[in-house]
């Protein structure tokens, strides 16, 4: 698994596509592939999970456990690219849910970074390799 992080609108997806030269890929936007898609995976190339932070937020709102779900997913899909905004670089939000969201995305990204073979940080469309 490769992890790509950075601020909003920094060109993370474009960076991923050009950096890894991926003719065969599928972008899942703010969702994780379901079971059927897993099985199609082999012919269909690599999964890219874009806007991963939004998936975390949705799962929180739906009462899920993103921490467990993402690692369960990664057990079945080791070869994928996860792209997430960094959302913790601001003022502590007044809304407790927003505070919790920020904190949880940060902690999940730490765990993903530990698991990832490579971690890239993208700014102005330029990737900086910070792990691997």
């Amino acid at each position: 698994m490769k992890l790509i992080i950075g601020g909003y609108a920094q060109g993370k997806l474009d960076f991923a596509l050009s950096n890894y030269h991926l003719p065969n890929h599928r972008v899942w936007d703010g969702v994780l592939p379901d079971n059927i898609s897993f099985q199609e995976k082999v012919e269909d190339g690599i999964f890219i999970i874009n806007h991963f932070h939004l998936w975390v937020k949705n799962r929180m709102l739906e009462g899920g456990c993103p921490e467990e779900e993402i690692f369960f997913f990664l057990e079945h899909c080791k070869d994928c690219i996860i792209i997430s905004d960094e959302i913790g670089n601001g003022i502590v939000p007044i809304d407790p849910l927003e505070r919790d969201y920020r904190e949880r995305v940060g902690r999940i990204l730490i765990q993903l970074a530990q698991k990832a073979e490579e971690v890239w940080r993208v700014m102005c469309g330029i990737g900086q390799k910070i792990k691997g």
Partner: protein
Amino acid sequence: MMVLIIGGSGSGKSAYAEEVTVSLYRQNISSKEKPPATKKYYLATMQVYDEEGQRRVNRHKVLRSGKGFLTIEQPMSIEKALAKMEPGNHVALLECISNLTANEMFNQEKMASELQIIENVINGIAILKEKTAHLVVVSNNVFEDGAVYDKAAMEYIHAMGIINQRLAVLAEQVVEVTAGIPIHIK
């Protein structure tokens, strides 16, 4: 030596700062020229107002437990923490500048000017740096949410920016932490 560690919420900056402090402490006790009276102090700045604050403090206590830190609560006038230390050549971890600055800015009966607050914080840290063997300072990246807040909050963000810049000048090392990964920027 002074190390400045900066990161956002949930970036892993605290865990990294503890690692650095413990490693500086080990260096310090193994170096022969230094007197042996070395302790590891944790300078805590957070004031607890509610259950969530208490949970935060507890999480950090668990993170620190077993590492031999002595905790000093010093929410304002950070240089006063020195008077609470035993005599000796210590290693200190200060966490964090965002709380300290907020306390200096919003908890005073009479609100001081932004400039005065910046001076208070920087002078306090400079004194700590001088009187300790090693000082590790944790600060926050509060600058990248793109939001516009009220005047007081914008003044706070601005003060934090200036303080971070000046701390980076004081520090021999500056490290940004993101997703638990340290990036050395000075």
